[in-house]
């Protein structure tokens, strides 16, 4: 046997997503992104109805907490609104000899929430960055009322917090005077109650807030699907290894027309619903 084949095998064991075993229990444990909590709960609910022997437990807590739980082997699937960070990938490689598998399950537009009474109805990416880094502090300077801007963010554990920091703030820090809320629903509630507030979160969330146009583009399904709306991202499921058994069946279903239909009903953009 040529040595190269031995090496290939060694590499496949070390760094590819080789298959491994999950517990035989009929429960699937899912934890992670708060943004995805509602979506994952909906998926779990419909799936459990169609598969009576399976129980799915869904927890939020943020993408970072989900990935920690995944690395500790406490859950089967981590939901994530961002990709793995380098240190997380290294931990997976250290503990599992695998870089993990990432599944794309939906697309999401990140909406910028404004109070409906705010005369500002649209923003540019540059204005958004300046507002959240503290360079623009008053609505007046961008055509609004003379009123200090109250920036609201998710907590730093959230994948949305990190996505916004990387893609909108281009890696710069948030201004220190931001208001931190744990969930998207809390952000929406805060913005709805404060005329000078601005927040961000999933496009699928509703409430008494205005979803601002960004660079003149409205956040709607079509604009997110065709990448016209400038703040879009994929939502993911992570597993440590190639899933098998009940976990594989669930993920296969999520990617199927039935699962993608639940994605659409939950306010997100299905990736393959119309084409299967």
């Amino acid at each position, binding site marked *: 046997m040529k040595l190269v084949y031995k090496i290939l095998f060694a590499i496949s064991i070390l760094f590819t997503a080789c298959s491994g075993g999950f517990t035989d229990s009929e429960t699937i444990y899912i934890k992670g992104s708060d943004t995805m909590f509602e979506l994952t709960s909906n998926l779990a609910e419909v799936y459990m109805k169609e598969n009576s022997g399976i129980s799915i437990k869904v927890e939020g807590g943020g993408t970072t907490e989900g990935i920690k739980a995944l690395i500790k082997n406490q859950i089967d699937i981590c939901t994530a609104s961002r990709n793995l960070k380098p240190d997380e990938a290294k931990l997976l490689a250290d503990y599992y000899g695998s870089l993990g*598998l990432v599944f794309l399950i939906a697309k999401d537009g990140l909406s910028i929430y404004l109070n409906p009474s705010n005369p500002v109805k649209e923003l540019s990416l540059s204005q958004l960055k300046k507002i959240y880094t503290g360079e623009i502090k008053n609505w007046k300077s961008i055509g609004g009322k003379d009123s200090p801007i109250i920036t609201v963010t998710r907590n730093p554990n959230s994948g949305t917090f990190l996505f916004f920091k990387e893609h909108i703030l281009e890696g710069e820090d948030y201004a220190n005077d931001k208001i931190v809320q744990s969930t998207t629903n809390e952000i929406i509630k805060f913005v709805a109650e404060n005329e000078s507030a601005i927040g961000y979160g999933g496009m699928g969330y509703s409430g008494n807030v205005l979803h601002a146009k960004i660079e003149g583009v409205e956040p709607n399904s079509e604009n997110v699907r065709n990448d016209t709306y400038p703040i879009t991202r994929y939502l993911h499921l992570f597993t440590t290894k190639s899933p098998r058994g009940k976990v594989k069946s669930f993920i296969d279903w999520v990617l199927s027309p039935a699962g993608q239909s639940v994605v659409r009903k939950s306010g997100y953009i299905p990736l393959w619903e119309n084409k299967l």
Partner: protein
Amino acid sequence: MKPTYLNILFAWFVFNCLVFPQTKNSFYDAFNSISSDEIKKHLFVLGDDSLEGRGVGTKGCDKAANYISKQFEAYGLKKISSENSYFQNIPMHGSIPLPKSELTIISKDSTFSISYFQDYFLYRSGQQTFIPTALPIVFVGYGIVAPEFDYNDYQSVNVEGKIVVYLDGEPYSDDESYFDGNYPTVYSYSESKRRIAISRGASGTIQIPINNFESWEKIQNDFSFEDVTLAYSVSSSLSLLINPDIADILFSNSKYSFAQIVEMNKSNKIESFPLETKLKFKGTFKERDFIASNVVGLIEGNDNDLKDSYLILSAHYDHLGIGPKIDGDSIYNGVSDNAIGVSVLLELARIFSSLTTKQDRSIIFIATTGEEKGLLGSSYYTDNPVVPLYKTIANINIDGVAMFKDFKSLVGVGGELSTLQQYLLSSAEKYEIELQSIPSQFKSVDAFNKSDQLAFASAGIPSILILEGTKNNSKTDSEVIQSFIDYYLNIYHTPFDDLNQQIDTEAASKHAKIIFDLAFNLLNSKHTPEWKEGSQFINARLRSIAEKK
């Protein structure tokens, strides 16, 4: 009694029944009816400009899939995919970087903005590659950690949260026990280097091609196509390929210049060290999600004990699609790669379905998609098989066929890893065809790891790719070798792999006959191919048997 026409015919029938069992009789009829005209008919559909090069996720590729499925239907193949059609639908994701992407290299005294296409490419495109904050860069030799060779480029440097830069290739040696001597090991693959870097905590990778480097223009051509993955993939990160002409920027003010690195590479004395530069990348991408399809059809076996075991015949039907224009042509038709292989697959489907007697085992025909993007269709199939992997006795993959009808030797690529080699030898000998090993000029091509047979083998299925050898009745070895080299240099993955080139469908039908004989024997043998002791694929086979997967 004077013999009449009917008497003679009857006598001939009785003679045949006595001499050959019924299946043999069917076999020779079928064997002789393998038709170069049928192969040509399919080839002129699949290789036509109207299919626009069959790029995965395009209308041309869908048209090809529809054409294949219609042939399967006409031949009476059974539908076995879960959607009750010939299509096994595969969710895929495509991404292509836009020119407004910004890559900046920052040294102590300067900032360099370098341009996509002109100066660098991305191995993997998409959101996972976004690095808006400048990160330190570390040079890590060839980017290899190979304990079996006592070799570790990461031994003396910390790369966590940093970008690593490495050269292509691997340490050079004439000693076969060290990185396989003159032949490349898996460590020379870009994907291996990327995964080693990610597993070490690196935030991104940059490969500088100098060892296997023809020209940046060639790379520009190769990287001009959309990056496509399955809906699921191994975690990734920013991974760049940088033009060696500008690589010195990365080494500004550092311990060694790039020119010194080139010299170290030549003398096999590479050293890892941190660079005095940083890098940031703001990518802008056009992304899309789509469904592509493998086309799968079955002919059931007849033996009660054996029909629940399966032979897979496969050929990929996708090619590159539309790409950079060369001499006014932008359609990469992929006639040799692999419209001809699919044409042979279809002809074999027709022939097997025409057999009057069913075979003992069942046979599955799969026209795979996404091969050109990294064996996507075959990998998806082995993750989602339509019949259990452990009941799948072998895979014969068809990716390219013989060029010359006078060929008198074949290469069973990967056959040496399993007993498939004996089956192929037995088939070839009947037709006075020799088996030879891969000619030394092409060993570095590493053919087994470059097409769908690798995905099937990695799932534990004994697999083989049958290629034309260099022995020929009307040409010398060196003439044949030169033709192969000319093909790889001038035709392969260019718009010139189209219907205007000389295609010998007689050679294709002769190639098809060998595959037919081999497949026929495998389908009717009481024995099944086995991996040879020591093969790296045995464990996957044992696992699938144990798990009844």
